[in-house]
């Protein structure tokens, strides 16, 4: 049961208020019509699915209705940061103490 810091509400909230929305930082191809089937399929379905650090989107569905990003360890479930849409993650690899 996660306790998630909403970067818009500025406080931690219970997981029940949020919905996970999958991998973050996948942007829609600017010219979809120019994509091959393979490229479009990759965009639609193929994911990093890492065991470890994962940048992912959540929405504060029962709260401020804002989408935001989180960096979470998919093994320990630790959330290392949350950040607003459009921002870049600060945590992009494990430090020694975080390795699980």
């Amino acid at each position, binding site marked *: *049961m*996660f306790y998630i810091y909403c970067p818009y509400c500025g406080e931690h909230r219970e997981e029940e208020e949020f919905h996970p929305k999958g991998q973050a930082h996948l942007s829609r191809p600017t010219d979809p*019509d120019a994509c091959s089937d393979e490229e479009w399929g990759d965009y639609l379905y193929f994911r990093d699915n890492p065991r470890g650090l994962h940048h992912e989107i959540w929405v504060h569905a029962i709260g401020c209705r804002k989408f935001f990003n989180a960096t979470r360890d998919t093994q320990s479930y*630790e959330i290392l940061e949350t950040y607003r*849409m*459009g921002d870049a993650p600060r945590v992009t690899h494990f430090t020694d103490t975080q390795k*699980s």
Partner: protein
Amino acid sequence: MTQPNRLDNGGRIDRSKHLTFEFNGRRYKGFSGDTLASALLANGVDVIGRSFKYSRPRGIVAAGAEEPNAVFQLGATEATQVPNVRATQQELFNGLVSQPTSGWPNLQFDFLGVFGSILGRMLPPGFYYKTFMFPQAAWETYEKYIRKAAGLGRSPRDPDVDTYDHLNQHTDVLIVGAGPAGLSAALSAARSGARVILADEQAEMGGALLDSRETLNGKPASNWVRDALKELSGYDNVLLLPRATVNGYHDHNFLTIHERRTDHLGDRAPANQSRQRLHRVRAKWVILATGAHERPLVYGNNDLPGCMLASAVSTYINRYAVAPGRRLVLMTTNDNAYRAAFDWQDAGREVVAIVDTRAYADGAWQDEANRRGIKLLKGHAVIDAQGKMRVTGAVVAGLNTDGTQLTGKGEVLNCDTLASSGGWSPAVHLSCHTGSRPVWDDDVIGFVPGKTVQKQLTAGAVTGCFSLADCLADGARIGAEAATNAGFNAEPAAAPSVRCRPETRPMALFCVPHYKPNSRAPKQFVDFQTDVTAAGIELATREGFESIEHVKRYTAMGFGTDQGKLGNINGMAVAAKSLNQSIPETGTTIFRPNYTPVTFGAIAGRHCNDLFEPKRYSAMHEWHVEHGALFEEVGQWKRPWYFPKPNESMQQALDRECLATRNSVGILDASTLGKIDIQGKDAREFIGRIYTNAWAKLAVGKCRYGLMCKEDGMVFDDGVTSCLAEDHFLMTTTTGGAAGVLEWLEFYHQTEWPELEVYMNTVTDHWATMTIAGPNARKLLSELTDDIDLDRDNFKFMDWRQGTVAGVPARVFRISFTGELSYEINVQANYGLHVWEKLFEHGAKYDLTPYGTETMHILRAEKGFIIAGQDTDGSVHPYDLGMSWAVKEDKPFSFIGKRGMKREDCVRDNRKQLVGLKTKDPSIVLPEGAQAVDNPNHPKPVPMLGHVTSSYYSANLGRSIAMGVIKNGHKRMGETVHYPLVDGRVVEAEICSTIFLDPKGERQNV
């Protein structure tokens, strides 16, 4: 009815409060303060159950959560039955009714027991994998008998009469366990002002101090407990929760506490009180002060009634004033257990001997034993218990120094109680729930909590710190640390002084060797509840089940309702030895919630019955109920399905509703459709990207139907969107799709196109929507409005207008899902019922007929309109639906779904396409879901063409109509397909246009 084992003095029971209870059909007496177990022991009840596999007689072993045997059926009425209640944790109340959960025909003479001893030899672990295979068909029969033996207690057959609830807690420090460590921690943390919750599973707080012989500050330990609790209950930042088991430790310091509020009061909870409560706690810091469980030693016939944990003996004497026997033999690997013998002696009973497995034991405890004149056999062990229904003797033999071999011949000591202690296993369970693995500590001779990412601290015996003084100091220090971590200024509370008696190093011994190999020795039980023996574990490892997880799964060790609290470590030790490896190499199995079992009802809380899930109602709901509507579930909404009149069949009602609408005027409550208000200068652009069709030119005052696809090109929602003003649109969605669509829009806006200036808000609930449809719709509406020009040319199909209807400002949309002249009237929902009733007042003369979703479906099907989710299933794109008109390929922005529907598989031939279907026999209504085939005589598997998505009897057309998907259907117009039905009939149908009625759309354009 005396209580033969009750002591005259002492204990924490209230001798002035007599209680009567029932066990196994007999009535007994006990006192307030007893547990069911202590009361049974007081009454001298030895055999309380039969073992699961071998049906051996069993007695009470422990005094707490680790008890494996005393697991009973509770409940005086059918509705209040509770299976598998652990008697050691059930407080006694007056009128308590309990039954053993095993043993047939009775506990004393057990039929299976006789067989068990013979058949038992044929039941090694995993025996069922090795047999019952032949002949193949016989398994079903075998299984019936195997199943008969399944289970302990039984489920009630009646619904629960009690209620349960949840309480969401937030705290700075949650302390689990109110023994010396937990209490000290609570004092330190509470004094800092931090919010503190202290939870303990027992009725009384104090943990080990409640049966301790030690003194704190020179006074009985219980005095200190009393004072600590008094102080703590004075703080309003502290919540004390007795009878509250922390049963699960989840991520990010979320823990659940199972509080039994009324189980000690009676069979049923008092009125207005929930029986049990689940506290859902989010803690900044958690302190585990859960103590340790004593390990019994494993020896032959160690499951005989009368074999007990040493500490349990002390607990029964000191807390409950029960000496569970007359003549005690104590076997121990450590000094601490000596107190059981001393307590026994102080209770006036005979200690036959202390059998200490350590030849080297020579300190204060041994001195005291000698002083007390107790026979002390050092370097010895009990290898076998004797007796049939209860211990009558213990076979004692010499043991070598590393505990691997017996020395000399065995001697029989007569006794009726055989207590053992193999040391203490820290109660690490909770620390493991979020994935941390415990680590072996050679000094502790046990596993201690491992590294964790949770904000967790540990104090007391759970860390392997077993001296009371250390537990107190540790608790105080950790309590302060937790509060400090949570942002408070905290100091460790001063620890009381304890008279400390030094202890000699304990011995690491788990399973006492026997003269015979374990496979031939008398059964040495490791896990009582699942009847797992040392020999069974050895057999598993010999067969190749070498991982401890395999051992667990092959033997079922630790699978019981006690989750192996008593036996697991011993089992691991046996496995380790058999595999010739160390215990840490062998490792533990995984501890998972629950610490002790939790009532389903408590986990469900108040989300039951009427409150299981919201029922959503429109503003006109009461009217529908009053007018006899039957309801359909759509999402969480209750929508009128149809409005039968008395004695009307469903079909008759539908025919009536359909005809009334087509011939005069019908009315539908359409309030549940999702409505999204979209404002902003980029609203139009935004909508154009979301929908597949064109929006650039939709003028103010106009409405348009749109299809929404996912990026894969498949339709997922549809609806009409109206241009309210240049920068203002009202989008409607399907009822079930409303929330999903809004989130979808927000997702694209917030993550992909934040630069678009647009705001979206739900107004679903704000507007009550009623659709009047039928040739008389205009006439009816004209009676209720004088400020809307209803002229057919001024207020055209797909226009909307603002005005007043029945005195209420309204937006009226001339859109139609029925193909009739139709108006959707939207008014602020607080006035919905008023307008609805006014429409009926004026509608009577037109026989205004309310219709529900079913008639709506029929009417739209006559027109070939789709229902997203019924005629589509996520694998259908607009072209499959024959709706190319709703796709605008040349919009400048590549709208959502455009690229998806161009993928290779989406443009191939032979896709399933939506078509109309006319049965050859017009009276046959194809079942929805029927599958079309070309050749019904084809052997199975029969190639299928597609299924019927919508199918009805159309009273207007006097025949059945249907829609369905057919492979390549658009090119197969006029062809015949066959529908083989479940009942054996084959229905022929002709593929046709989906539009059955008024193909030119004249009816809606009048």
